[in-house]
């Protein structure tokens, strides 16, 4: 739509003075149709694989077991305290993962951005390598490392760092370690890209005007890198909300997230309505938190400002 609008604007403005306005206008319409035609496979794909299932999901969630309209699935979610706790855990894990990713990922991206191009490319491979390894393999690898008689505990005890095996996995800690490891590239890549786009002359100019290196970083470099940071953090946060495998394997059954609860509902009870209701609530809460974030952080301005500057 926005493509069509931006096309229309200049054409329309010119049409008033041009004598061949009608011809231009029909050309514009034709062009828009062609563009739409080019987009249609993608639009169709999104409609079929995204929009329709979501509508279907909403529909199912309001259907009782007997096939009539009802709110029973939503009432069930509020009747048991378990679901509130599951949603709490889901958001807790997602927020913590995002924060840790930012704390580790931002300095890493900054370091990479300062390196000469060749060295940065080499280091980038080490960031990306885990990205190309199967999620399941990485998750189980963490289990092998972190469990009670795993490498970390055995070595630490032999080195005398601690006497008794400590619990690093089969709990929230293990889940966070696994998820941060998987999510880190999603943060580093956009942050790195936005840092590379910053003209280093700005920082030099700040120094020239008397700013200390720390001041130059906080007042000039950091605000310019914010769009990338927010974009990365948002991707990480939203992806975390739907996580399934990692908490299932590394959480030891203690960390129960919404996606796991949805699977149980289907596998155990074949209750599509109840599972759909869980999905709908998660979707609404995700959209809600994104909306709140955009209001709170004024994302439009930050993201828009980074992009165009008008």
């Amino acid at each position: 739509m926005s493509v069509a609008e931006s096309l229309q604007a200049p054409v329309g403005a010119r049409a008033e003075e041009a004598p061949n306005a009608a011809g231009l206008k029909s050309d514009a319409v034709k062009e828009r149709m062609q563009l739409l035609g080019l987009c249609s496979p993608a639009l169709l794909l999104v409609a079929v694989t995204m929009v329709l299932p979501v509508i279907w999901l909403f529909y199912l969630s309001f259907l009782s077991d007997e096939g009539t309209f009802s709110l029973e699935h939503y009432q069930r979610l509020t009747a048991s305290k378990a679901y509130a706790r599951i949603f709490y855990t889901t958001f807790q894990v997602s927020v913590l993962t995002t924060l840790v990713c930012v704390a580790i990922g931002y300095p890493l991206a900054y370091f990479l951005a300062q390196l000469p191009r060749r060295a940065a490319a080499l280091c980038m491979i080490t960031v990306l390598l885990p990205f190309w390894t199967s999620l399941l393999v990485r998750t189980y690898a963490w289990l092998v490392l972190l469990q009670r008689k795993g490498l970390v505990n055995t070595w630490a005890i032999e080195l005398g760092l601690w006497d008794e095996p400590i619990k690093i996995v089969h709990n929230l800690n293990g889940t966070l370690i696994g998820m941060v490891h998987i999510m880190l590239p999603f943060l580093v890549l956009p942050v790195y890209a936005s840092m590379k786009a910053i003209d280093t002359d700005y920082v030099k100019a700040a120094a020239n005007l008397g700013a200390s290196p720390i001041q130059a970083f906080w007042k000039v470099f950091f605000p310019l890198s914010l769009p990338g940071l927010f974009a990365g953090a948002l991707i990480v946060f939203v992806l975390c909300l739907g996580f399934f495998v990692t908490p299932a394997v590394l959480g030891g059954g203690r960390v129960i997230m919404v996606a796991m609860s949805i699977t149980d509902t289907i596998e155990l009870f074949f209750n599509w309505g109840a599972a759909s209701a869980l999905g709908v609530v998660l979707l609404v809460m995700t959209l809600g938190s994104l909306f709140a974030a955009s209001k709170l952080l004024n994302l439009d301005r930050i993201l828009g400002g980074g992009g165009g500057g008008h």
Partner: protein
Amino acid sequence: MLKKTKLFALAATAAFAISATAGAALAADLTIASWGGSYQAAQSKAIFQPVAKKLGITIKEESYGGISDVRLQVKAGAVTFDIIDTGSGGGARGGVEGILEPLDYNMIDVSNFVEGTYLPACVGTITFSTVFAYNTDTYKDGGPKSWADFFDTKKFPGKRAYRAKYHGALEPALLADGVPMNEVYKVLDSEEGIDRAINKIRSIKDDVAIWWKSGAQHAQLMKDGEVDMTTGWNGRFDVAIKDGAKAAYNYNAALLDYDCFGIPKGAPNKELAMKFLAEASKPEYQAAMPQYITYGPTDKRAYEMGIIDDAVAKTLPSHPHNAETQLVVDNSWYAKWEKVASEKYQEMLTE
């Protein structure tokens, strides 16, 4: 343009014809779905292939994900399985929901079956036990002997694992709480009884390091020494012990459960499937199973045929000596209390 279309149509017809003949050549008289892995490999050698040979038919074996797959096929009106292997719980639920055909027990002889190991729509084929295993290194001077010991974290300190679902989880808690075996399901037949069981589990929650979800998982936990004791299925522990796990278990007040064969509603070859089950439920086939995997027969006569090695027989869940000390899982309780029990269990888990 026209030529191209014609050519395409021709090619499509040819492709269709080829795939149709290929399909016909592969089509078997019966399609059987089971759990795959070492279990189905054993079934294939001990039961499926010999029975097919006896009846002079061809079979196709598939592995599947359990009763929910059957439900999908039946609801979609596209049933491809003639026979399925499911847990007794799935068999009971399938019968109640009407997605499994009622079986003809005039054809299938269950007169010598271990009590309670067949259902209207599902006939038992192997027995397994839900037991607890403990690490023999951790408890060198004698390990826990009963469910009461398993729940006694003072007498037997150590990390435990317990099932993440309520199946086979509430009965041990009541037994540990002093309920005699023959009254367990009577007590569980009320919300207070379920609460009592769940409260007992709640009391050791701090010592439960892991809530397990699959058989492979609890076997691995014992093998890695990740926990000092866990509940689980005897066959899995046997495999783990064979692989070097320092573990032991016993049948004292274990839960005796079984897997069974059913016929999905609308199966393409229902008649033949029924004949197949009548043959497959004979003790001689069941007796051939334990040489491949340590699950016991449901027909008691299988023990008297001299096919099962004596030493092996004594280790099987349904061996008379072991069966008498166990509680047979009551599937009617599961059908009745499924929703209540699972909600309460989940509530306890998420606390």
